[in-house]
């Protein structure tokens, strides 16, 4: 799913790149005139990118208004999550006031209380901790497995590649959320198992992406040079190829966090979350029963999810715009 999102986002950027070239001084293709070297926008810009390194990409990212909005949103959520124990000390699952206080009814509980008299705002702020922890940790697990498998498959090729590709295919054929439900149900739900299960169902996508990058980069001059110098596989994989394969993986990882947050929410909505921790999904699940009378209990935690996921998707789009010209150019 995430793979597709980033590939969708990738293509319009290519379109934009082409239209920029039309406006540049040399509107025709350089192929027209093989005898003369007309200035070639492509080679020039990619050379510039290499020189300026990542700083240029960071600048592009930071001048993208959407990315800034996303980053601001996300920082807000992260700060709230970190500050949760100080802002709302005590267990958010404790009853603190009269049940079904509507938002704004009691200034002590600005977002009201639920059917058990628990503070909704405290729940949402503490829920951010679970969502972010699971989202980030699951992504790290998925990235680690995925990069390892993808790197091995893409770097070595041959039989190893065939076998690993088949493995990836098997995992991508299994409907991932159904597999997730099975895994969590078998392992008994808690924060650790949910995180690991999400990591297990997301790695194939990373592996696929990494493998494609490795296969492309494997044949590049600097890798061949490193090989001819007799460097070991580990060094070539981690020092020569991986850094160059990272941009698309970085873009994907941001969408993966968003996806993991959505999956965790869906799991705990279905009652497959950690029963001892408050989570946005479980708050929605609890609010669902009283949606006719107290719909804010369903709406508010949902808004928190939407808010966080949108910010991650905005960041991913921004990253894509900033990092993509580089790797799309190199692929040609």
């Amino acid at each position, binding site marked *: 799913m995430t793979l597709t999102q980033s590939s969708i986002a990738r293509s319009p950027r290519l379109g934009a790149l082409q*239209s920029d070239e*039309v*406006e*540049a*001084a*040399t*509107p*025709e*293709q*350089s*192929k*027209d*005139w*093989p*005898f*003369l*070297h*007309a*200035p070639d926008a492509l080679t020039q810009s990619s050379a510039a990118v290499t020189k300026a390194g990542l700083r240029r990409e960071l600048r592009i990212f930071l001048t993208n208004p959407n990315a800034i909005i996303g980053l601001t949103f996300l920082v807000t959520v992260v700060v709230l999550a970190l500050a949760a124990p100080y802002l709302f000390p005590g267990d958010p699952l404790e009853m603190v006031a009269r049940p079904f206080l509507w938002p704004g009814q009691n200034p002590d509980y600005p977002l009201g209380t639920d059917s058990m008299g628990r503070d909704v705002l405290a729940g949402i702020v503490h829920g951010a901790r679970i969502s972010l922890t699971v989202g980030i940790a699951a992504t790290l697990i998925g990235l680690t497995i995925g990069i390892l498998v993808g790197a091995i498959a893409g770097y070595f090729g041959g039989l190893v590649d065939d076998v690993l590709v088949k493995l990836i295919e098997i995992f991508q054929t299994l409907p991932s959320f159904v597999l997730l439900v099975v895994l969590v149900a078998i392992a008994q739900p808690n924060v650790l198992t949910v995180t690991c299960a999400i990591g297990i169902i997301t790695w194939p996508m990373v592996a696929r992406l990494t493998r494609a990058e490795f296969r492309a980069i494997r044949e590049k001059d600097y890798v061949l040079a490193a090989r001819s110098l007799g460097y070991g596989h580990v060094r070539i994989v981690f020092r020569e190829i991986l850094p160059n394969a990272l941009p698309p993986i970085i873009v994907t990882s941001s969408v993966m966090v968003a996806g993991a947050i959505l999956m965790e929410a869906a799991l705990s909505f279905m009652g497959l979350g950690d029963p001892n921790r408050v989570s946005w999904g479980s708050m929605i699940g609890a609010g669902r029963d009283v949606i006719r009378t107290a719909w804010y209990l369903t709406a508010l935690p949902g808004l928190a999810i939407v808010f966080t996921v949108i910010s991650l998707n905005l960041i991913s789009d921004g990253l894509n715009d900033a990092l993509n010209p580089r790797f799309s150019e190199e692929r040609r």
Partner: protein
Amino acid sequence: MTALLEVRDFSVAFGASQPVKGVSFTANPGEMLAIVGESGSGKSLTALGLIGLLPRHAKTGGEIRFEGRNLLAQSERDWRRIRGRDIGMIFQEPMTSLNPVLTVGEQIIEVLRIHERLDRKQARQRAVDLLELVNIPEARKRVDDYPHQLSGGMRQRVMIAIGVACNPKLLIADEATTALDVTIQAQILQLLDNLRRDLNMAVILITHDLGIVAQWADRVMVMYAGRKVEEGLPEPVFTDPYHPYTRGLLGASPRAESGHHYRDGPLIEIPGSIVSATGEKGCAFRPRCPSAQASCGFAVPALRQIAEDRLAACPFTPTRFVSQIHDASLRS
């Protein structure tokens, strides 16, 4: 005889840059006019301008009179009636210029049915006839082939069949043979040459291959940085290039003039590249011109009639031209 096509001071601008800066030329029925220039000379943009296919944000100036009517002043609707019927166009890449998901027959029939009242059966018969006209063997069978089943030369023949399907008065061939093998190239040009005679159709051949120009064109026009710098009959232009750029193209350095012939060897590179089209004052070729002088930086040199049927835009006359110009001015 009135010209079929009369272009007056035609210009194309994208924002501040102006890749075509006021070009004038004419084309007569049955004539083959070659436009020569390197990447960025504005020749392809001029061609696209002739058929009204410039990008939407391009600003055009001047006039394109086709059978006395100013094409630039007409609506998009009127353009569609002219494209494919009165003016046909063939593009450079036969590999990508045909729609991959439609059979070649469908693509020929499409243009016929847009512009002429034909039923399906008639249109199909015409498509077969056209494929025969462009010398495709087994036309009746080939008409149901998809483009990927044909070779590059065959595809370009199909493109020509589409281009001449409605007996256009003008056919524009933008680097139509560049992507083909030399032998195929000659066949295609022979085909174009026959067709223009049979159909009394003007052909504008846009190319960088001077050998083709010398062999097939009736008249040649050299463009540099959005301007016409020289025009005349191919033989005199190539044996006695007037403009330093034309000389550069032909690889005829002043001293080698006597022995070296443009067909003898590959073209040499002219040092430097086309300067930015936003441009400085003066002659655009000055930075690369071996015989540039201080005065070249003051103003853009005007086109002068330097002999009968001969125009050039350089104020400095190669010595051997002095007597000819004298003769010409005496005669006029």
